[in-house]
């Protein structure tokens, strides 16, 4: 039995859209593609929940905890505030029909050996006759217990016409004081008949939270518990008996010693005060199995042959050991019985705490090895647990992608206008929803090969980009070193953008396109800065002629092709391309009468009269610069730069890096009054859009 998905509605960060987390099935699952297969069972069977800070990762574990807790208590701040705010708006015009409801939907998969006693209410005849696995839906709703009383109180509250903020606060207080009741619904929203149903009977969750204070003897206590379990397990019952007998012996011995020496003395004293008929003490040893176990294990690390006590050891290792210890305990405690009637979740919250990056990178592998070993050690056990890890570590994310060689089973939590939304990643989604076009030139096998190659590329390449993509506020894709070098500087100067974490990825041409499906999924505002790449005939190239009209011109840029529905003709391009969170910009308009084909050309056209640019050009390509503007320093005609912009860009193509670095150097060392070159118009427009988008995506939405 395993949990397939959990949908969270109106609870904390989530509202009623994009609110479903998907969990991977328990147990070993081989990766389908044989070529990439490895024995890594845990990595591919781990559900990863990643997201930035405050994006709602904890909401997911909190939701599970709340469900398992079975309590009826619901507080105002358990609700999504935007949702409550909307309700309050309705109440204030006396529309009292909609009541605050927290709801959760679980999809549970049952396999053939499972007992159905814990989910009987949710099985229908249809679901019990289909093939291998059967899915059930369980909805858990927290309803208001006394609707009539609540409505009366709410009407009284809104009658008072408090100012908005105060009214909201009062509303929260009102909800705090309102009683809720859990109800369970099955198929077609039918209420469960069995009033005894509880989520805690169905789901068992081990929450390993690394952030909880790691105090000095933390690990020892974990190991103590493990050893205690060992003794208490059925197989060790004779060992336990022997041990208990030993303890009794010890008690006897000590008691004998104590009573011989101390009892008499104490009682003599007491007798003086009170007759011994009334009062007599007996001292005895009271060592018990539990007491022994609780203080049994001393945990030391061995380092260079020396034993180092626990409290002197690095927090990172302690954390890792703690997690492994908890897992060992979990496995040890797991009943031998092969029959399942429960879902078992192991949830590790932000394990990266205190770990250095390399350790984080190997984390999944560590856990994998540990669990694999444990399973080998206890052959009889059929562990059926689902491992869930929440993290904001790009390293752990990397580790997951690479050790399982797949994007499957990653839940990314995106923040959009203050709303958390869960994005379910998998290989298919990440490689794009493009369908095979049977009218295109590409054959079907080529299509599949290309797709699989693209995915392979993405998996390899993303290793260096994970943190940029998953944890940035916005992303800018550029196609060359110059943009890459200069944009960072400009963004730093830009007040609308410099407060955000914006990553700039320099990915050349078509390779950038591979990232697009992923970027779209992640919902991060993304700007693609590409080039018009005007196709010139060999003659035109030779003549280094400038382009003043693009009516008959084509572009060679693959990104533009893609967005312009594979159309190469420049005159058909309507404007910049926008698709949801994506915008592509390029040199679509003339600058100083000419069309630029690249960033450098546009930059030169835009700033032909700028001192810094001129300085850098003369420094980078002194001969060519003099050729164009004239040799005599005082008589130079900078406007010649405009007319020769294409020539300049051609000549610069071998030394773009120099050009960029020289510019950056001059930017940094420039004098007070010296004017900074401006970015070409299309980039300015792009950045403006990005600034707007990123602000929008991070704002809380409607104000409260």
């Amino acid at each position, binding site marked *: 039995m395993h949990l397939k998905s959990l949908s969270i509605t109106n609870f904390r960060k989530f509202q009623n859209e994009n609110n479903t987390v998907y969990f991977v099935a328990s147990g070993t699952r081989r990766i389908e593609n044989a070529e990439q297969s490895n024995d890594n069972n845990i990595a591919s069977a781990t559900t990863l929940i990643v997201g930035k800070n405050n994006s709602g990762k904890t909401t997911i574990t909190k939701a599970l905890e709340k469900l398992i807790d079975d309590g009826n208590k619901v507080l105002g701040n358990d609700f999504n505030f935007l949702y409550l705010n909307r309700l309050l708006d309705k109440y204030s015009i006396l529309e009292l029909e909609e009541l605050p409801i927290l709801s959760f939907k679980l999809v549970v998969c049952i396999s053939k050996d499972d007992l159905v006693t814990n989910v*009987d209410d949710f099985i*229908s005849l249809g679901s019990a*006759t289909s093939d291998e696995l059967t899915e059930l839906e369980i909805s858990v709703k927290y309803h*208001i217990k006394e609707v009539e009383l609540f409505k009366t109180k709410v009407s009284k509250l809104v009658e008072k016409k408090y100012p908005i903020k105060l009214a909201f606060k009062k509303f929260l207080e009102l909800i705090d004081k309102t009683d809720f009741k859990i109800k369970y619904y099955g198929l077609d929203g039918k209420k469960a008949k069995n009033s005894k149903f509880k989520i805690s009977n169905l789901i068992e969750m081990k929450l390993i939270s690394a952030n909880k204070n790691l105090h000095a003897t933390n690990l020892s206590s974990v190991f103590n518990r493990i050893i205690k379990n060992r003794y208490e397990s059925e197989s060790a019952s004779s060992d336990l008996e022997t041990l208990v007998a030993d303890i009794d012996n010890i008690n006897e011995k000590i008691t004998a010693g104590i009573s011989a020496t101390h009892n008499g003395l104490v009682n003599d004293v007491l007798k003086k005060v009170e007759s011994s008929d009334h009062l007599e003490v007996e001292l005895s040893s009271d060592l018990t199995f539990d007491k022994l176990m609780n203080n049994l294990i001393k945990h030391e690390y061995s380092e260079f042959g020396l034993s180092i006590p626990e409290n002197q050891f690095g927090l990172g290792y302690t954390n890792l050991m703690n997690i492994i210890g908890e897992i060992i305990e979990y496995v040890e405690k797991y009943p031998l019985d092969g029959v399942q009637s429960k879902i078992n979740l192991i949830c590790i919250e932000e394990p990266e705490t205190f770990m250095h990056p390399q350790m984080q990178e190997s984390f999944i592998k560590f856990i994998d090895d540990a669990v694999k070993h444990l399973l080998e050690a206890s052959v009889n056990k059929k562990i059926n647990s689902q491992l869930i890890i929440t993290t904001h570590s790009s390293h752990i994310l990397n580790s997951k992608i690479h050790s399982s060689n797949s994007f499957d089973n990653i839940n990314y939590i995106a923040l959009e206008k203050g709303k958390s939304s869960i994005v379910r990643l998998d290989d298919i989604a990440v490689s794009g929803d493009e369908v095979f076009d049977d009218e295109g030139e590409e054959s079907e096998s080529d299509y599949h090969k290309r797709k699989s190659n693209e995915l392979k590329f993405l998996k390899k390449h993303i290793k260096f980009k994970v943190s940029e993509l998953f944890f940035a506020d916005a992303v800018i894709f550029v196609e060359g070193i110059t943009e890459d070098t200069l944009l960072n500087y400009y963004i730093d100067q830009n007040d609308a953008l410099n407060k955000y974490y914006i990553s700039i990825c320099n990915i050349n041409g078509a390779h950038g396109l591979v990232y697009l499906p992923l970027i779209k999924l992640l919902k991060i505002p993304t700007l693609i800065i590409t080039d018009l790449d005007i196709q010139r005939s060999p003659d035109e190239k030779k003549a280094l002629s400038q382009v003043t009209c693009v009516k008959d011109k084509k572009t060679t840029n693959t990104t533009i092709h893609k967005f312009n529905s594979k159309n190469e003709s420049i005159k058909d391009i309507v404007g910049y391309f926008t698709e949801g969170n994506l915008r592509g910009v390029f040199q679509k308009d003339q600058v100083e009468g000419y069309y630029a084909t690249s960033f450098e050309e546009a930059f030169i056209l835009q700033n032909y009269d700028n001192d810094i640019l001129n300085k850098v050009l003369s420094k980078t390509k002194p001969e060519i610069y003099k050729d164009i503007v004239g040799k005599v320093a005082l008589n130079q005609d900078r406007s010649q730069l405009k007319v020769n912009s294409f020539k300049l860009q051609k000549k610069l193509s071998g030394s773009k890096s120099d050009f960029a670095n020289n510019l950056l150097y001059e930017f940094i060392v420039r004098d007070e009054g010296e004017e900074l070159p401006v970015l070409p118009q299309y980039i300015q427009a792009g950045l403006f859009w990005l600034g707007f988008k990123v602000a929008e995506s991070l704002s809380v939405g409607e104000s409260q």
Partner: protein
Amino acid sequence: MSLTVIAEDFINEENSIQKEIYDSIDKNENIIFNAGAGAGKTYALIESLKYIINNYGSKLQKHNQKVVCITYTNVAVDEIKERLGYSDVADVSTIHEKLWSFIRQHQKELLIVHTNKIKADLQELIRNLNENEDVEIEKTYRTYRNLSAELQASFKDYIIDKKDVFYKAYSRNASGFRGAFNGELECYENILKSVANFKKVVSTIYKIENYKYCLQKIEEKDDDYTAVRYDSKFNSDILHKMLFSHDTLIEYAFEMVKKYDLLKQIIGDCHPFILIDEYQDTSPRVIEIMQLLSAHSLKINHNLFIGYFGDKAQNIYDDGVGSNITSLHSGLRNIKKRFNRRSTSEVISVINKIRADEIEQESIYEDCTGGSVKFYHSQAVNKKEEIDAFVSKYVDEWNINNDKKLHCLVLTNKLIAELSGFAELYSIFSGSQYYKKNFQYINTELLSNDLGKLGVVPSVLYQIIKLKILLENPKTPLTTLLSKEVYSSLSFAELKVLLQQLKLITGDNLNTFLYSIFNLYALGDNNVKKVIHEVIGLDKEKLSYDAFFGYVLDQLNPNLDYEDKTEYNSEKEKLEALFALDIEEYERWYNFINDRQDSEVIYHTYHGTKGIEFNNVIIIMENSFGRDKRKFLNYFSDVIDPSGLGDDAKCKFENTKNLLYVSCSRAIKNLRVLYLDDISTFTAGVEHVFGETHNYTSS
């Protein structure tokens, strides 16, 4: 659109009536709230519940007390819950459910009541078997009584040993039945002279044995005999299996409440407010229970409020208390409401004339005109065709479609069965000895929407058809079909196997379906057996086709003379015909019972429409109703001046009046009556109620 603007002084008056109720609630003064059809009784009830929740809710929560609202069907329960909004403090349930919750905790005391009931029944059985001098009874048991004490004893032993043979042969004809015993009964003189009497003797002996065995087990405190259970599924008791049904539940609850003061206090303390909806149809025993609770609460000075909401003119069940309530529970404050919130003034004026008592309704709306009432009569020979033509005329005239349905109340059982597509089924049932003799019951026992009122045979058939429907629907919840006991130890794979086996039950007609059930019962594993046993709910001996056939034959023809070949064959053939009916006919009956008809014209019995309202209503009526060939004829003849009627006639008149009142008051806007008999002798009476009469001819 009419019926939208409420007259201001009327709303004030209505509010002040509601305040009277609140006042009584505050003063702990029991009330009886009477209001005519469409007066907003349920509204008053729900507002009262809200008042209690708002003013006493926190107190109730604190003491873990509830306000109880008892209503008549599960449909009504759901409607009230829906209108009230979710509440834990309010406990809305049917009377049976509630009574059961009152007494189920007290198994020790319940066991005493149960034991007494069995003892009393047992005594009666023994008396019948041995000494009751009643002529009929003496005749039945004579052959047995004539045996010597020694022979009686050996006969008992023999026959108890032959249970299987007895039930297997049960439905055979006399000679076939005799043959089953291979002449082994010859030593008992004339015991097999009359097969019918023999069967009664043996059944009585079995019953006595069962009861004795049960009593002994109770005495021994056997684990299976420490608790008695109410089973809402079936309409007959199986006392010796520690199961009882609706009527016995009310009886047990009454006995216990009467006997134990502490129980009165527990019920009263846990439920300091009890509101009863549609009191007029509640059993007098329930009213007695309430009266006992109320009297006791006064005695110990604990607060208990009881409110009855209803209308004596809408008493349509024979076992309902009706206007007798005041003699059973005295000292109730009477609150009346004269408004009508449902119908147009045209409809109201007709129902006022039918009602003709102290409640003369007036519409609460200013814009209450715009409806119409017309009475048509026809003497067509083919009534069914005439109805079809009449109905289709109005389907056109009123633009009836699936969103705007036409509701026909048919005051003839046969007609409603015909119109709803189970004419054959109905006609076989009504032709059985039992329903010929007890024709007045067929309306409730075969056609009632209230499952609790179904007869013994209809109830078993209902469960069987329900099994079919449940099995066919992939959305059927597991727990509806199987009991926890069955599936709790099964793995999911084993569960699938069980369901696959159950799905083998199929059949085009009831016969093949039953064969398939009993076949599976004979061959299936324990789980399958358990499920089938639970569905049919009869003793294990009866779970074979022959035994079941015999059981039904016997139930439908309690006095069947097995000697009389013609009679035996005729009844047997009737039952065979019943079982041979297409299963779809049964499903249509099932859907009718469950009010699940899905057509633009929906047919109802008058019982089935309690508490509901429809824009357009057609009532189909004729002289006869049930076995009373002159029911409406008599009514319309007496309606102008019923004062001279004798007691018996008066009672019948009231009954007909209530029936007509409930039917006509369903209409919101338009009401048509089609009377399918000659009205010339009582036209004046009809016109007194409905105004001008019209002749209808379809051709």
